[in-house]
């Protein structure tokens, strides 16, 4: 009757001297899973231009319809998006845009922290999407 009690005390004492497994969040972040789908970013091609050819597949496949594209033509480089808008406040992070993209321009990033006071600021354009690359080394 006494031995299990002592065993329990021994167990808690060994736990007491083990290192806590807590992540101290704001300073120390939990590394996201390997296939984590966070905020999207744009990749550039070899010439340093964005790869997007404004085919509109991501816009078509997006279940929450948060992507809007206006297509433009360039003499030298061909099709490009005049306007590419991604409403991150509506995005459900399903990752279909990444899957649908034929030229590997848009990717799901690892970043999961984004808080704003204003809904408008969640609208991502091409510059913001290219900038987001910095959070995904």
């Amino acid at each position, binding site marked *: 009757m006494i031995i299990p009690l002592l065993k*329990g005390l021994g167990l*808690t004492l060994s736990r007491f001297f083990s290192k806590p497994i*807590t992540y101290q969040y704001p300073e120390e972040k939990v590394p996201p899973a390997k296939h984590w789908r966070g905020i999207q970013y744009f990749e550039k091609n070899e010439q340093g231009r964005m790869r997007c050819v404004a085919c509109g597949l991501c816009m078509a496949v997006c279940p929450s319809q948060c992507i809007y594209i206006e297509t433009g033509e360039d003499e030298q480089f061909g099709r490009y998006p005049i306007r590419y808008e991604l409403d991150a406040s509506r995005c459900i992070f399903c990752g279909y845009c990444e899957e649908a993209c034929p030229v590997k321009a848009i990717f799901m990033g690892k970043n999961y922290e984004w808080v704003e006071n204003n809904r408008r600021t969640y609208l991502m354009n091409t510059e913001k999407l290219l900038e987001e690359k910095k959070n995904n080394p």
Partner: protein
Amino acid sequence: MQVLYLLIEMIVKCVVVFACLMICVAYLTWLERKVLGHIQIRYGPNRCGPYGLLQPFSDAIKAFFKEDLIPGRADKPVFVLAPMISIISAISLFAVIPFGNQFTIPGTDWVVKLRIADVDIGLLYVFALASIGEFGIILGGWASGNKYGLTGSLRAAAQMISYEVALGLSILGIIILSQTLRLTEIVHQQAGGFWNWNVWYQPMAFILYLICGLAEINRTPFDMPEAESELACGFNIEYSSMKFALFFMAEYAHMVTMGALAVTLFWGGWQPPFPFLSFIPGVVWFSAKLFVFLFFFIWQRGTFPRLRYDQIMKFGWKVMVPLALANLLITGLVVSLKG
């Protein structure tokens, strides 16, 4: 002049002991959260100051600024009186605990004894006041006008009466051995190394004292009066702000006193474990031993789950009381046979 000096000495001692006890209580809450945290493989409070050391002060400030609510159905005078009874008895318990021997103030022949009151009936005083402290809990729950509070206080009453019997009986062995109720005298008899401590002569009483002490201060395996999961905090359900803080402080002060009494009765009080270590002041030894007990109280809280109410009652009356009685009989027999 002699009287004036005595008065100054008394006031200084009272203030110092009170301040130390309050700081001890404040940091006991910190220590408890820290130890429980580490037992559960997390950090515990560590945001407020280095290692969370300022946490007790932030808690105190929070308690002061909370709304002080008295429910409409409450019995107001008793409701206000209950936390006072609790805290006053818990603090005044410490008055008879000898936390050191004595020292002479350098340059004079004035001897300062390191205890507030050295009364002949020290042990009796402790048990009397501890029982009064339980009135705080019982009245507090009853005066809240709340069914959970009432259930909690009924449980408190039943549990404390049952376990006080065993607690008193377990102490009687020590009284038979030392032939005195004066705590200083009991400590003096345990001088000269750890093999002279009462714990070796009364091991059964020591274990019984620890278990019944836990029941007496409502620590976790026996925290029936405030069982969070069934009674939603029990007797202090309607208390908020400083009134709740008073109950909280009373609980921890009571815990410190229980530990201090265990040190005094069983672990030789301020006496060092080896005679050659006596150059270290007794207060240090007393604090170190007290810390061991306080750590044990917290440690076992992090280990054992709460017992069911009928289990507690059965355990109290069918195990603790007979064991305490047997211990008392055997001690009496051995002492009378040895002459």
